[in-house]
């Protein structure tokens, strides 16, 4: 229908103008980052020990946080999607609070619980002589706190979308509850789990507020890349740009991989 196509081609100026301005606003800063990057010195700068330490720490802690999120988040998602108990909707709301909570607040809350005077922190300190704040463990915990909800939301959505009758079919074939979960449910929601894990990892990698509040900013121990960017900005702009470029590259890769996942998902 040519008439229809012609009508669709004409975009109202009242929509087009703000759209173009908005797009420029979103894209220009990224281009600016690329334009200012010290491309020639890039390999050398990347090899600097401080830079490598931040990179290593970030990769390790974000991965550890993702593993923790998978371990605890998948069971939570299952409970939220399949469990039948009172207060389920309240629990769901609570679980997603960290999604909208300012990360700094999360950091303060973690400090209050796991700090030396905190409920769990004091017990850990007195009983086992373990101190969590301002350690690499604190970084992992801060990251897990802010990023696990992403995993939970993604996996819960996948579980809700999964056809429960496949699980019934498995039961008639002699599979008990746990086997049904590991052999049928989990493989069938695998795309959702993977997407959730990638999102979770990306969020953990970019974590700043909760980390700096709960874990501080100690090079090699708690100084992840976003923290290093923040610090470098005050002393060495080029280093900040290089670190930012890495984070940008990771984001783009994550986005690309997710797009593939989402379009390939059943």
């Amino acid at each position, binding site marked *: 229908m040519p008439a229809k196509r012609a009508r669709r081609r004409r975009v109202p100026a009242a929509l087009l103008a703000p759209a173009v301005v908005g797009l420029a606003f979103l894209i220009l800063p990224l281009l600016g980052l690329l334009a200012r990057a010290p491309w020639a010195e890039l390999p050398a700068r990347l090899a600097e020990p401080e830079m490598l330490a931040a990179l290593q720490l970030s990769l390790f802690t974000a991965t550890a946080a993702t593993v923790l999120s998978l371990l605890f988040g998948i069971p939570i998602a299952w409970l939220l999607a399949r469990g039948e108990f009172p207060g389920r909707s309240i629990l769901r709301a609570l679980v997603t609070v960290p999604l909208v909570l300012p990360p700094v607040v999360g950091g303060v809350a973690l400090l209050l619980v796991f700090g030396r005077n905190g409920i769990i922190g004091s017990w850990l300190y007195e009983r086992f002589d373990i101190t969590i704040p301002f350690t690499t463990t604190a970084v992992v915990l801060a990251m897990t706190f802010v990023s696990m909800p992403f995993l939970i939301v993604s996996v819960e959505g996948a579980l809700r979308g999964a056809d429960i*009758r496949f699980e*019934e*079919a498995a*039961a*008639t*074939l*002699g599979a008990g509850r746990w*086997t049904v979960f590991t052999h049928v449910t989990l493989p069938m929601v695998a795309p959702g789990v993977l997407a959730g894990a990638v999102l979770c990892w990306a969020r953990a990698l970019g974590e700043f507020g909760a980390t700096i509040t709960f874990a501080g900013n100690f090079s090699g121990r708690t100084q992840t890349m976003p923290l290093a960017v923040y610090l470098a900005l005050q002393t060495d702009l080029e280093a900040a740009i290089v670190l930012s470029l890495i984070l940008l590259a990771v984001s783009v890769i994550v986005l690309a991989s997710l797009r593939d996942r989402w379009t390939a998902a059943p």
Partner: protein
Amino acid sequence: MSGVKAEGLSAHLVVDRGGFRLDLQLRVAPGETVALLGPNGAGKTTALRALAGLEQLTDGHIALNGEVLDRRGQRWVPPEERRIGVVFQDYLLFPHLTAIDNIAFGPRRRGLGRAESRALAAGWLDRVGLQEFGKRRPKQLSGGQAQRVALARALATEPALLLLDEPLAALDARTRLDTRAELHRHLTGHTGPAIVVTHDPVDALMLADRLVVVEDGRAVQEGDAESVTARPRTDYIARLVGLNLYRGVAEGNQVVLDDAGPMILVAADPLNGPAFAAFAPSAVALYPERSEGSPRNTWRAIVSGVHRHGDNLRVQLDGPLKAAADVTPAAAAQLRLEPGRRVWATVKASEIRTYPA
């Protein structure tokens, strides 16, 4: 009905679910195949789910080879411990497993090793004629192939009871014919009881030894193919087998019909008491005028619809007696049959079958 010590399946299924109540007595002998035939929403699938343990009984019991599987307040065996094989309507093959792994899934869960299970599954693939398709995923199988894998998957667990939910409904006509014949072969080979749920009378007649017609949660008729098709007891079955069916009270050769005005049909065989009267659409003759010396069963009818039926035309008649009549296209043209046309319809007494209601 507590005579539980018996081979085969003995069940009284009662499931209450918000306004709907299933109340069905079922006995299926070893090696016997029973078809639950009925319209959509009659409760056939609910019955199947209750048997498989996917739904709990409100009342009644299920006993298989003497073992109680479900009896309210006393015992409930979960589906994974029932040894009941189910072929689901849309097969529900696990999409993340290959055909052979789908079949091996059951044997694995029943404690067989990986290699043994796969060997067993390969044997079943062979038996359903799909030996080359073991590595395919369910998405890469045609409907007929998926159906056969689903059947093999259910049979590979050596179920004590086999349940099939609309096993052929998702197939196109051509595949259906082949698959039905093959399914029949496997059902004959199955030594335990089997139940086929279907709304298709042809599937029911071809696959089952006995039919149980379910309507609105209850069994309305039961028997072998011959008795059910020859003497339908509800409009649903009459429609399925293509008969005009009326309920009334018989006095000798006359049947006074219940809801067809002051209408009396005269049949050849005498009978007394509440009765059904049935005749085939092909037994109805249509005339433009009331003919001289016509048979006794003659009434004035209005054509309400005409459509093709095989080589003939099936005419829906309105009037004191709603009926279907089959006429040849030539006769239809001669009579100028079209909706609204008034005709005289007659049926010979010898064509009317009567039997007690």
